[in-house]
């Protein structure tokens, strides 16, 4: 696991919202589901789409890609429905003193 990076103020991402952040060349998506934060690679594993623009399904704790509708589990990054079949990477995310911090996964793309 790599170093922790400070991303933003926790208030900037209210519940039911998501933000796309570029860490260097890598776009990541930070989600707030009823106060819990999750962080995935922003790019869908199926095609070039931004998960931070999709639809949140709080009950299933999943994000639905806006392009072809694949849902990904926010906790594991695994696809729950087609057409995506590969998972997206999950990054560790924490709230420290009201600030959102992220540690990028070291898994190779």
């Amino acid at each position, binding site marked *: 696991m790599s170093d922790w990076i400070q*991303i*933003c103020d926790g208030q*900037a*991402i*209210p519940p*039911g*919202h*998501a*933000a*796309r*952040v570029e860490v260097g060349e890598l776009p990541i998506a*930070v*989600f*707030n589901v009823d106060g819990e934060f999750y962080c995935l690679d922003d790019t869908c594993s199926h095609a070039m789409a931004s998960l*931070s*623009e*999709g*639809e*949140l399904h*709080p009950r299933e704790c999943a*994000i*639905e890609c*806006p*392009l*072809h*509708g*694949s*849902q990904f589990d926010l906790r594991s990054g695994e696809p729950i*429905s*087609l*057409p995506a*079949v*590969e998972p997206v990477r999950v990054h560790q995310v924490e709230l420290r003193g009201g600030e959102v911090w992220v540690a990028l996964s070291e898994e190779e793309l």
Partner: protein
Amino acid sequence: MAVAAKDLTKDYKYGFNDGDQFVFRAERGLSPEVVADISRRKGEPAWMLEFRLKALEHFRQRPMPSWGADLSGIDFDEIYYYVRPAEEQGRTWEEVPEGIKRTFDRLGIPEAERKFLAGVSAQYESEVVYHSIREDLEKLGVLFSDCDTGLREHPEIFRKYFGTVIPPNDNKFAALNSAVWSGGSFVYVPAGVRVDIPLQAYFRINTESMGQFERTLIIAEEGSFVHYIEGCTAPTYSKDSLHSAVVEIIAMPNAHVRYTTIQNWSNNVYNLVTKRAIAKEHSVVEWIDGNLGSKVTMKYPSIYLMGEGAHGEVLSVAFAGDGQHQDAGAKVIHVAPNTTSTIVSKSVSKGTGRTSYRGHLKVYPKAYDVRSSVRCDALLLDEQARSDTYPYMDVEAEDVQIGHEATVSKVGDEQLFYLQSRGISEQEATAMIVNGFIEPFVKELPMEYALELNRLIALQMEGSVG
């Protein structure tokens, strides 16, 4: 850093009352009101209404595909999305073109069926046949009904699988179907059950047969077998110019599902279909796909080989006569290791007809030990005919054996000469050669269909089919 967060929760209620008053809408065109009306009329649960409305929104936003056949002739505003007024039910027997009537004669189609196929009668009178088959199936625990009934009587199974193979925003026409679907089949085969007789769409009752926006869902539990057949070889008249169906199949471990389609829609129809199957461990899924009619067909049956040891097969035939464009193909996605697939596509273009094969074979990195072979052959019978082949092979694993071959040619002069020198006319000889060309497909059909198809090809060669 400063970030701009987006609200990702969506509300599809559109501010309707939940009251049960609804207005009968027999107008053309698509709107949230029409969709809500469809749902209310069917008495659907709230989740299905939300599903439909969300799909509608996606349909409106999604642009038309930039590839494929020419769809500029479709006028979405002129379509009746649910009910048409009674006086628009069909046509009279006198209006049916002579060529079609002759074909029915030559193919030996029974009287009752003729009126139905020709669009003269709205219902297929098959009660007697249907009832006895239905009893047999019930004994096995097989569920076979239309989807509306399936949703109503088996909501848990339905909700678990519906839309999981083809999500509403998979493509524009899946979105349309998801918004206004009606009819289609719901098939559930319990574990270990073998359904020996092929299930056919005709066996369902109380449906708008051959609806425009059919939705079919087939679930085959572990170790089961089922063969489903839709369509028929005889020319089938449809007043509706747009058919946009969705078929979802889930084959559980060790299950075997075969889905046969023979489509011969009248030449005013745009036939745009999304068909996809998920094949789990050691299961087998076969798409047997015959495209004979319609003005334009866009259809690419696909199989996701998700479980180890699964096998997928697509066997398709496309026949394009004057003014027709059959844009068909197959998609096989190897996700799991030790999976195999075979695709065979045969197409014939006559007159100004055009056939296109579009295929996608993808092997994901974790799918090692994969074998796949694709074979596309096209026969061009006349100077004006056209054929295209657009296969994609994306291979991301090393331990594979992938092969693809395609040929395009005309009927061989030597073959023709040989047959003609034995007293066979050029037309008959061409028919024989074409029948031989599509033989791998025909031999997979139940016998009555095979015979009908052979006869139909012979008729096409004579140019006597209207």
